[in-house]
């Protein structure tokens, strides 16, 4: 039996290089950090810094070609225990909201009845009770993104990977979704990796922020976020929040 202090995610010098037409592009070089079970890690960095690539490596969509990567405790099944959501909601427009949420569970062949009940619970969790039978086009962008969050959770994954899930939303909706994300995460015990280019969003949401820099794409540093729990949006006006945010901007070379 493993000690529960073992990290849930462990990356040591993980790198990914794309080769196309004889040219090599280093997308990620030397990502090194640990994430404990139940943590919410934010991966922050400018566009093109390889954070989405790193997320795809974690999702098992692309193999990494340098370093070592360990995901999950014994019994973790990468094909079963990972949920994802992207910047675009990517809902199937011919399916109603409920059937959109159930898609991953259908693919995994989970029992239909229980899945539909769970989908209803998740829609309630993301504040969308009553939209089960609507089509995606009847929902606003923020609501569609909530559906895609519910879908990421339908098969009760242990690891949830979110690739700039609020990047396409307006500022106010985005702040509300940050609160929602923390509420959903706090009750779940799930490990979450959130890719974002918003430093404030990263600090507000996460228990740990990993900073990637552009150019020669590399891991710059990881900061534990020691802000108190639970957090309200007003925490962003505190000196602690400001100090941490400034240190991250420093790391990104933006001060």
């Amino acid at each position: 039996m493993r000690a529960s202090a073992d990290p849930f995610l462990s990356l040591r010098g993980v790198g990914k290089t794309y080769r196309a037409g004889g040219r090599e592009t280093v997308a990620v070089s030397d990502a090194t950090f640990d994430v404990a079970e139940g943590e919410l890690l934010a991966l922050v960095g400018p566009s093109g810094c390889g954070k989405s690539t790193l997320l795809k490596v974690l999702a098992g969509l692309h193999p990494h070609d340098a370093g070592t990567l360990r995901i999950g405790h014994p019994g973790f099944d990468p094909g079963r225990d990972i949920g994802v959501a992207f910047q675009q909601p990517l809902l199937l427009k011919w399916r109603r909201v409920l059937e959109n949420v159930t898609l991953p569970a259908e693919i995994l062949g989970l029992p239909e009845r229980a899945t539909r009940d769970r989908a209803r619970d998740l829609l309630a969790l993301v504040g969308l009770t009553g939209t089960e039978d609507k089509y995606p086009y009847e929902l606003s962008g923020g609501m569609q993104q909530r559906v895609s969050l519910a879908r990421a959770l339908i098969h009760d994954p242990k690891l949830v990977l979110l690739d700039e899930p609020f990047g396409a939303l307006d500022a106010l909706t985005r702040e509300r979704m940050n609160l929602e994300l923390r509420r959903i995460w706090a009750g779940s015990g799930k490990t979450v990796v959130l890719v974002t280019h918003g430093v404030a969003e990263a600090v507000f949401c996460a228990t740990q922020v990993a900073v990637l820099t552009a150019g020669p794409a590399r891991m710059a540093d990881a900061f534990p976020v020691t802000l108190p729990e639970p957090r309200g949006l007003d925490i962003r006006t505190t000196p602690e929040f400001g100090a941490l945010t400034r240190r991250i901007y420093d790391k990104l070379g933006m001060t």
Partner: protein
Amino acid sequence: MRRHAPAVLAHLALLGLWAWATTYGGVPRFILPGPLETLRALAAPQIDWPRHLLVTATQAFGGFALAVVVGVALAVVFTWSAALRRALMPLLVTLNLIPKVALAPLFIVWLGYGIVPNIAITFVISFFPIVITTARGLAEVEPELLDLVRVVRATRWQVFRKIQLPSALPYLFSGMRVAAVLAIAGTVVGEFVGSEAGLGFVMMAVQGTLDTPSMVMALILITLVGVAMYLAVVALERAAVTEDARLR
């Protein structure tokens, strides 16, 4: 109903214009007979209208249905094999540039007279828009949507059945709408070139006697077969594709 009123009015207006031009407009009746006279051609004892209508409809629907089945099957093969797609798609584009009506005389040499060569010509003319639009629809799935289901290890069949096929349906239907128009043209050309039955055959047969009422009547019935095919496609689309997903 109110939404369709302008369309119905436009149709009736054309009918009215036709009646007016042939009654008071001075159009000679051997050039264009009036609506009533055209309708009376249906009573001509020497023409077995129901049989000819049935032959034309069978050929048009038959060739069209075959085009849908083969076209969709080929498009599916293309999504499963990039090598085949790269080899065959340009070939299809080249073949598509053959004026298909010019194939009609050859088809008669190869397949003889009757329904078979006419179904074949209808098939080749309506096949291309279906395979090309469907292949495009199957290929135009958001890559991240595929990532989403690959994370939970979706099989190729699941990806096809749950994502690619439904998202290609609007493309398929837009291809079918184009194909329906072409199909009826293909059938009639086949009947012109060599046939012993069908509405196109009727037109050729009565042309020698300047029986314009029968010719116009045949033309109207051909058009109605086309309208029926088109409406069938639209009804099928309404049933299969949600409103938001339809291509305009």
